[in-house]
């Protein structure tokens, strides 16, 4: 009994210490973001590289998914709603499901899989190879140089990718609709614009920015938590992916709930 209590206590203590550490890490990153422009020339090139890798190189995959998702939603919507004579509601479905929810979630999942894992692995290997110690020996803070610039890069890329996903999914919706019900692109866009409101776009943008921040933060944190062994790198990467997805899902629910209260 004592042993169980001791183990439970130890686990709670460790979790609490971990949470405290993560919050202090988050605070440090946030303050680094606000003073980013003042300090460094090199940090900017890291941001550009990160945007290129996370954003530009993911465009193909995101575009493909966006066409498929937009198309499928509008197809299913048309099929179901036509039975009730409410085909026009398919546009509403496109807005509420794709624009408000799926664009940011899908983009986030792709970014977790591509960039979250690579950031965590890269930083983990840097720890193992003493590269973090090297930065400290110069007096360069690893958080300022590595984490802040990557976080800004991922956030910018997520924001851009989510907008790109939204645009392409609408296009996908039109394309798949024309396979069954010929409709001019202009008419389709008109119908869509009549349904979409500024807050729908806003919530999608807010979600993508918040998710980008979560992904970068958790991936960097786990990468830097690698101690000395290369075997820890994949373990930490798995942890980063799992934690990112869990937190993204929870925050998504929270933002959607706030949205439903406000609008």
């Amino acid at each position, binding site marked *: 009994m004592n042993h169980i209590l001791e183990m439970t206590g130890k686990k709670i203590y460790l979790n609490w210490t971990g949470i405290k550490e993560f919050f202090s890490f988050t605070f440090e990153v946030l303050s680094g973001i606000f003073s980013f422009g003042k300090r*460094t020339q*090199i940090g900017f090139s890291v941001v550009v590289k990160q945007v290129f890798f996370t954003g530009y190189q993911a465009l193909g995959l995101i575009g493909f998914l966006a066409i498929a998702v937009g198309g499928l939603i509008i197809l299913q919507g048309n099929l179901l709603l036509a039975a009730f004579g409410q085909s026009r509601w398919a546009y509403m479905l496109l807005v509420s499901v794709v624009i408000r929810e799926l664009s940011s979630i899908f983009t986030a999942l792709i970014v977790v899989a591509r960039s979250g894992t690579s950031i965590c692995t*890269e930083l983990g*290997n840097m720890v193992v190879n*003493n*590269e973090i*110690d090297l930065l400290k*020996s*110069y*007096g360069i803070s690893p958080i300022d140089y590595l984490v802040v610039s990557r976080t800004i890069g991922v956030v910018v890329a997520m924001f851009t990718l989510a907008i790109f996903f939204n645009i392409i999914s609408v296009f996908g919706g039109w394309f798949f609709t024309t396979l069954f019900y010929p409709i001019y692109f202009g008419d389709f866009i008109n119908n869509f614009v009549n349904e979409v409101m500024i807050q729908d776009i806003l919530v999608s943008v807010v979600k993508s920015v918040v998710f980008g921040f979560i992904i970068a933060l958790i991936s960097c944190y786990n990468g830097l938590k690698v101690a000395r062994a290369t075997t820890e790198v994949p373990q930490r990467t798995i942890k980063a992916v799992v934690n990112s997805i869990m937190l993204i899902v929870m925050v998504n629910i929270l933002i959607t709930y706030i949205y439903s209260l406000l609008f």
Partner: protein
Amino acid sequence: MIELRDVSFISEGRCLLKDINCTFESGRCYIVSGEDSVGKSLLTKILGGIVKPHQGKVLVNGKDLYLNIDKQRPNNQIGFVFQDGVFISNLSIRENLQLPIKYFKSQISYGELINRIQLLFEEFHLDIALLDERPSELAYSAKKMISFIRAILIDPEIYVLNRPLFNLDFIDMKRIMSYLVRMKNSEKTLIMTGNSRTLMENLADEVILLVNGEILVKESAERFFASTNPAIKTYIENNLG
């Protein structure tokens, strides 16, 4: 001057360094010696501003090195040389050498920096073409020499070197050694780890022997080698021939 005051370091319940008190005077050369895993590398990292001790203070010219370490940047007081010549692996050697200077928007112009790098490369008989290589493409000795050059570039007052001659061939060892002598003559403070008798006899003002994370002795090389202390005698016999 750099001073360790009651410095202790604990890892996974093990005390790796215990109550270290030691002063390193300006312009002098110190060699920290000891068996493997006694805490020599850890001590250099603590002196280099890399690892914060769990207890105690590191004072550089009277100021706590780890107090507000974020606000004291850049760290141009201490030049650190890693045992195996560590580099940022996804940057070229040129980018590695420029990193701290560019990062802190240093006053040194790009041209001046390149000139200094070229001069040092010539002095150490290194091919200037290596500047465009990635660290992984370099031989061990080249990595180590360039890592030494990197520390010299920022022209610090204090050098902390972790086994600077380890695994080098005779010629490279001589080059580094002669540069260390020049640094000593120009009143730089040198703190290095190593188990080389030649290094101790030719360079050290004082030898520090670490045993189980504690300083057993800190004295001149002559007195160290003439010591009658059985522990020191055994160490010299087993490790320094």
